[in-house]
């Protein structure tokens, strides 16, 4: 996926090293290799590769990871601009 890079310095991903217990779950679930565990601690090695899918935060046992998850889809974002985020979910509304 190194051929496919999207906008830099936009991801809402945050990581709290102190809370990390080094379980490695984030490294397993991330589809873009954003995390790497070394010396029993995870670290963010490619923040610009993050697509904010939210898998890491959802599976972190100590809430050491924070991210505003969402779908990077222009049509969906337009819908949220028009109708607001509540009661409008990608796919359930007339999106994809």
């Amino acid at each position, binding site marked *: 996926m190194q051929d496919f890079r999207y*906008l830099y310095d936009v991801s809402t991903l945050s990581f709290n090293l102190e809370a990390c217990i080094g379980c490695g779950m984030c490294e397993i679930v991330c589809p*873009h290799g954003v995390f790497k565990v070394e010396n029993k601690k995870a670290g963010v090695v490619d923040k610009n590769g993050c697509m904010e899918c939210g898998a890491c935060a*959802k599976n972190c046992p100590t809430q050491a990871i924070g991210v505003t998850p969402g779908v990077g889809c222009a049509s969906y974002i337009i819908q949220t601009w028009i109708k607001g985020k509540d009661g409008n979910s*990608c796919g359930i509304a007339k999106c994809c």
Partner: protein
Amino acid sequence: MKDNCCGNSDKKESFGNVSHLKPFAFTTVMQNKKEEAACCGPPPGPECVRFARPGYEICRFIEEFIDTAAGSVPKIRTKLSMADRLMSVLARFGIGRNSYGIAPGIYCAGSPSADSPVLVTANYKLTFDALRKELSSVDAWILVIDTRGINVWCAAGKGLFSTEEVVKRVKISGLDKVVSHRELILPQLSATGVSAIDVKKRSGFKVVWGPIRANDIKIFIDAGMKADEPMRRVTFTILERFVLVPVELSFLVKPSLFILIGIFLLSGIGTEIFSLKDAWSRGIMAVFAYAAGILSGAIVVPVILQWLPGKAFSVKGAITGTIAAFFVVMTLKDVTNMWELTALFLCVTAVSSYLGMNFTGSTPYTSPSGVEKEMRKAIPVQALAGLASIVLWIGAAFIR
């Protein structure tokens, strides 16, 4: 030959006579078929399978049913039929795509035992088929959960492939009676919607994150539930991008109908207030430009994506759009004027940029923060170009 339903007896008797005249092979065939010789219409279909139930239709991908402690479980065929392939192609074109689900519950592949692994998947038929065809030499249980006919990753993003649904389906299906272990293999991409810890807490089943792609599942199982790094990374090959094009186009059909009406109406406005002749002759040029914009933004951008400069998709679309617009201008330069050519140029570029930006929703790597940032910059520019195009197009009709 007792099966005379509607044939006439003369004909039957004549068989005996004919056999003397016809080649030997013919009579053999006829004799072998004697019992099932159909007199009217084609021969009858096969006998009903023993597991047929009134009110249920047996899916064609089911080979048989096996008995388990949780009731009878369908065993899948691991070879895709022509019908499966055809339906997949249609779904790729947006036909029947929203009602292409299968019943949730336990299925099996091969001859699984109580120790065999449990693969959890979505109930979108395209997803199920992708998994099914990889299981030809695998003995496993498959727990299909109800994602309302949506693929794994999208369903996880929409909260349909969720912790709740996995836990619920494990309980309803009686999986704990079928297997002696307490482990589920979930596709890695479902992690967006599923918390492994919560599934364990609420169902007693431990989640093992399987590979992203179904075609790695056998290697994963054989390696003792271990995935190497490539199995854990999404890809976006040219083929993976290409198959997305038809469905992108299918989304454009409805809005395009309104746009075409708009184009012909605007093209007819002129010094005669509205000219049908102009609506047609100028409209067809504008439709040509619109089509070029679609080709450029919804087909060329997805296919040659990574070779296009820029990170923003609206920029990529604007680049291919500029090239497409150049071809449109070269094609039409002898039949129209500078004003119209400028309007068409802007139209192609704006449409292409917008559609390129729209492709963000189909990629596996664009973040919502990034898309929103890009849109805030690109949409005003696209809208301005579109508006300028319309103004120039209408204005040109008065300048001629």
